[in-house]
């Protein structure tokens, strides 16, 4: 903080510095200089004292010298001419017999940052490279880097560069590391220091001599090295293995970065390294320094992207301490959400429940939304907790709960009944904008099931003139329109008032336009309005997944051990928490080309001969979902929850086996098994499979991750055949795709063992990984050769053979398209 009267202080200091009595007494002189530095570090501009300080430089007292240098280095750029005076005494010090004085002088000479002094500095720097004392060489080496950056345009002498390269063999490890650093800077334009095989092996052999800072630097530079053979790669990795489990987090992280970049072509090796590093990372999560804990937790989040189940058993390590800062708590909760499985879900939810009433509102809200994310897989338990929290009647908790419920309903429509019941009475507690918006959205979409919905809206409409937030007003308008469609009698009057207000009174154009649009839409008739306003109620992209898809390591390896994971706000998955879910819905973008082929060729094929075929080629999901009136159309509503699916499936399977293999005629349902030959489907990612199915309105409920065997997908859809205007003839189809791949598996294992014998690396876990990769690779080839099919089991109720046949065609085309996509 600059004082007032800084000038006065400076004047006083000058008087003291130039006082001969002070100058003759070393202790007083030093104390006066101390005062100058203190004033300087408090932010006062003391550059006016430069010439006095230059004089103080000529002394034998090392402490005084150091102090003066601190001053000179800060202000040299402001006084380039006066700095010339210092250079002489500095050059003299470079000849001093004491190595400490030499290194001090050399360091500060290069720290002056004056391009005009370069010519005076070069000679002592050259001499410094050959100095007897290591501490002088350390300074001299870095000095060249400083010099180069002062005049980036001028070429640095090739002889110097060569000398720096030769100093990589210096007995002092710090000199060696400094050479690396200096060469990196000097040769930046050529891509940094040359990392060839001899240099790499030299550096690796001396790694043990360096301290942790040197090790980090060397490991970082070595990331550029590409081993020439697999043997060499494994030699390097086994040499570095002890560093991977180093108790020093910086070394551990740098080693893992190196592992990931060197073995980027061998995913199995990277995965094995991740498993090995999880121990030291967990230890860093319990470090005494909370900043270190934070860094470790952030990096664990990265690891979990590729190995979701990695730390499942250690979930307790991510319970929050009550005194931990909010930023760590938030990250830990994100990790906990990732680690949920059947065994620990009760414990984790119990722990998260405790955080929901935290004093810190951010922590409380983060805990509530974490529970919501877990609710996607374990909805009943989570809804119970969330509903309980509403009883607290606190605005920030209620707001977070309502927002979480909205997001949950969007993903898991089967929760809507519980949510509708819970919403009654919330409006009294809600204060903030986001919470009220969420409530309005829910009232609009599920208005027919919430008895008090019209009254809640009426209160808001009556107070709309005093409402400040535009977002709320817009949401209110849409919600009222939606409610009008399902409960016209109760809503008509208030809708009229609201539209009148929006069109006649409001000054906001956006709002007015929206109201006008709705008004005109109503003129077009109720059916048109319905088509526009009643879109999806749930996110079409997400079914219930068994296990999250693992992302490849290469996706994040680049930002491991950088600041990126620490500074990015929330993880990508957290994004769906603001605004209405529809506004950020899943765009049908599963590989643009894929969607095109599917919607154009195959759907038209099904509906060929129908008048509406042209309409169906519209690739927008909404269009498909609501407007197909073709002879056969598939639809996803009413939704079948996973529980229902399981129940129905088992029931019918039992029936089927009872009756033997012949087709069942009773109970009016069909059970067929077919074989489809499209093995490559196994290798397409769950997302693209799901997206493709979604496009033709087949909902996938559950699937195994890709490459696992047996590979299974469960799906369902409703068929609809409207012959005429009378009631449509609908059936429910449940299906299972199964690929056991037994023959392939054997071949794969054989290949895998052969590999393991040849493997140079003696580590078992790595070998197991290798085998897995080999199996997958093998599968790929076998798939093409043997053409083992996928068994499709379909189950329809009520029976409708034509519809089933048509459905099978659709399914086959989708699967074939996906296969050809893969080829």
């Amino acid at each position, binding site marked *: 903080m600059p004082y007032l009267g800084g000038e006065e202080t400076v004047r006083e200091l000058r008087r003291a510095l130039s006082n001969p009595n002070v100058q003759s007494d070393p202790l007083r002189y030093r104390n006066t200089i101390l005062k100058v530095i203190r004033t300087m570090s408090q932010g006062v501009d003391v550059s006016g004292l430069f010439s006095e300080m230059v004089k103080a430089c000529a002394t034998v007292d090392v402490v005084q010298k*150091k*102090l003066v240098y601190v001053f000179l280095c800060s202000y040299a750029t402001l006084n380039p001419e006066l700095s010339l005076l210092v250079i002489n005494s500095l050059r003299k010090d470079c000849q001093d017999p004491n190595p400490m004085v030499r290194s001090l002088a050399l360091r500060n000479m290069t720290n002056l940052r004056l391009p005009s002094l370069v010519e005076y500095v070069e000679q002592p720097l050259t001499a410094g490279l050959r100095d007897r004392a290591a501490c002088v060489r350390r300074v001299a080496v870095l000095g060249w880097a400083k010099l180069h950056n002062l005049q980036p345009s001028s070429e640095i002498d090739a002889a110097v560069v060569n000398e720096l390269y030769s100093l990589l063999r210096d007995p002092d490890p710090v000199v060696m590391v400094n050479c690396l650093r200096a060469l990196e800077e000097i040769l930046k334009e050529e891509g940094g220091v040359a990392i060839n095989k001899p240099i790499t092996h030299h550096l690796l052999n001396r790694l043990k001599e360096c301290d942790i800072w040197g090790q980090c630097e060397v490991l970082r530079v070595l990331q550029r090295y590409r081993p020439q053979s697999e043997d060499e790669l494994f030699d390097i990795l086994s040499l570095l293995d002890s560093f991977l489990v180093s108790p020093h987090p910086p070394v551990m992280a740098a080693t893992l970065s190196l592992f990931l970049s060197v073995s980027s072509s061998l995913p199995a090796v990277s995965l094995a390294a991740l498993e090995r590093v999880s121990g030291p990372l967990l230890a860093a999560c319990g470090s005494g320094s909370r900043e270190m804990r934070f860094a470790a937790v952030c990096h664990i989040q990265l690891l979990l992207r590729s190995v979701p189940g990695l730390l499942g058993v250690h979930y307790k390590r991510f319970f929050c301490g009550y005194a931990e800062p909010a930023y760590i708590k938030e990250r830990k909760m994100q990790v906990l959400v990732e680690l949920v499985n059947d065994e620990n879900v009760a414990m984790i939810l119990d722990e998260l429940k405790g955080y929901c009433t935290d004093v810190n509102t951010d922590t409380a809200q983060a805990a509530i939304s974490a529970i919501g994310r877990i609710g996607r897989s374990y909805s009943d338990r989570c809804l119970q907790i969330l509903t309980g929290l509403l009883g607290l009647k606190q605005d920030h908790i209620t707001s977070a709960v309502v927002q979480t419920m909205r997001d949950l309903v969007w993903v898991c429509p089967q929760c809507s009944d519980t949510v509708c019941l819970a919403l009654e009475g919330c409006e009294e507690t809600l204060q903030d904008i986001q919470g009220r918006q969420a409530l309005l959205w829910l009232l609009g979409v599920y208005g027919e099931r919430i008895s008090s919905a019209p009254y809640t809206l009426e209160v808001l409409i009556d107070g709309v003139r005093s409402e400040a937030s535009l977002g709320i007003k817009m949401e209110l308008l849409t919600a009222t329109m939606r409610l009008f469609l399902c409960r016209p009698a109760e809503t008509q009057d208030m809708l009229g008032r609201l539209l009148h207000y929006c069109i006649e009174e409001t000054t906001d154009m956006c709002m007015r336009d929206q109201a006008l649009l709705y008004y005109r839409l109503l003129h077009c008739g109720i059916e048109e309005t319905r088509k526009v306003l009643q879109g999806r109620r749930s996110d079409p992209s997400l079914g219930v997944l068994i296990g999250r898809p693992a992302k490849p390591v290469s996706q994040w390896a680049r930002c491991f051990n950088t600041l990126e994971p620490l*500074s990015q706000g929330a993880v990508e998955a957290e994004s769906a928490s603001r605004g209405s879910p529809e506004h950020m819905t899943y765009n049908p973008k599963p590989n643009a080309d894929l969607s095109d082929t599917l919607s154009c060729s195959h759907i038209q094929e099904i509906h060929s001969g129908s008048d509406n075929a042209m309409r169906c080629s519209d690739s927008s999901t909404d269009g498909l979902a609501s407007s197909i009136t073709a002879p056969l159309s598939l639809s996803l509503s009413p939704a079948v929850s996973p529980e229902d699916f399981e129940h129905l499936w088992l029931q019918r399977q039992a029936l089927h086996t009872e009756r033997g293999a012949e087709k069942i005629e009773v109970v009016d349902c069909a059970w067929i098994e077919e074989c489809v030959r499209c093995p490559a489907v196994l290798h397409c990612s769950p997302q693209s499979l799901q997206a493709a199915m979604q496009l033709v309105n087949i909902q996938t409920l559950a699937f195994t991750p890709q490459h696992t065997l047996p590979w299974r997908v469960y799906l369902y859809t409703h068929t609809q055949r409207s012959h005429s205007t009378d009631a449509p003839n609908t059936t429910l189809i449940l299906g299972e795709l199964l690929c056991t791949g037994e023959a392939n598996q054997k071949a794969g294992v054989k290949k895998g063992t052969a590999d393991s014998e040849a493997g140079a690396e003696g580590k078992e876990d790595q070998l197991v990984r290798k085998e897995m990769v080999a199996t997958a690779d093998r599968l790929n080839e076998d798939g093409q050769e043997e053409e083992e099919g996928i068994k499709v089991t379909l189950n329809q109720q009520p029976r409708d053979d034509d519809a089933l046949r048509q459905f099978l065609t659709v399914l086959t085309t989708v699967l074939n398209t996906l296969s050809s996509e893969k080829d």
Partner: protein
Amino acid sequence: MISQVFILSSKGDHLIYKDFRGQAGNDIVSIFYEKVTALTEDQPPVVMNHKDLYFLHIRQGGLYWVATTTVGSSPFAIIEFLNRLAALVKDYCGSLSEKSVQMNFALIYELLDEIVDYGYIQTMSSDVLKNFIQTEAVTSRPFSLFDLSNVGLFGAETQQSKVAPSSAATRPIQSSREQGGKSEIFVDVIERMTVVIGSNGVLMKADVEGEIRVKCYMPSCSEMRIGLNEEFSIGKSQLRGYGAAVRVDECSFHQAVRLDEFDSHRILRLCPSQGEQTVMQYQLSDDLPSALPFRLFPTIERDNGGRLLMYMKLRCDLPPKSAAINVCATIPVPKGSVSLSQELSSPDQSAELKPQSRAVVWQIARFAGGTQLSALFKLEVPSLSSASMLEVGPVGLSFELPKITATGLQIRFLRLSPVQPGPSQRWVRYVTHSDSYTIRI
């Protein structure tokens, strides 16, 4: 690579500012402080950025220790650097506070100058640094053995009759050089407990993170041998001896420690350098050898007058001769609690309602083992509903257990060889802190 390092007081005063690369302007410090104060939380995120300059900071001794860097730097390395810098400053100045940093700024500039050159860390080992650092530390308070006002006393195993005051180890390492006589060595076994106890009294989680720290004031110390419990075992499989085995899950050592006698006799050998260093770190999860130090038996109800009654019985299960100090229970209470009336079982306790943190803080200066304390809190909560009961808890407990280790780790002996000429003192101290001790209600 580090561009700048600066130290700010919590009020934003510039204490130390050093620019290593000359690439960013001087106003960076104020930009940082603005960012910190612009946040409503008192705990700003560790990483913040201004354009493409990144700030990393740690909080220690009530100060901000900040380094600026680019996005590609390793956060682990920079956080470790800042932590070690703070530790070095503590070693050299005796203690960490705004005052000590302010008084020793010349020393800190000198340290920074030797540690970092052009943004690259050169060395942080105190053995190397002691040859270069010339400035003497200035302490605010003359060191005195008679300063016994501080409570944090730990027994000294090696010299039963004498007790070193807790401030004994908070003096600059260099002062030994001219004070001459006082060559001392402190070995501290410090453990941090993280415990979660469920509402039914079941232990849900118990973690102990421990370390052995050596603080050496001897100008030249040759070799030191630290003997641990003989039945000390690492991991689950390996058990030694028949007595109460001391077990830890994982264990790691400072690279200077020689372990050739560790497997057979559990002896660590090292040549300690001046200043403080962590010789060994270990952790233990879920399987504590001794009983938990504290149990809480809460009863919470509403009375007819709309008040919330909380009856808390806190039992200390330590061995009878030992005691916990600075025990502090934080009990979250419903929002809108207005006032508190209390009945405490003994006069040396105190309790207070902290409305801004929405909690009742119950403090007990000293809590003897095997005893039980109780307290009745009556809270006036205007809008009390049955749901507000949910807001009570979980209770957080913080405490210090001197002379006790949760894992049972003990130091059998501490030998210096060859025997030091002149008077030398060896101190062994044990302490267990609560990292996070949570009891759900």
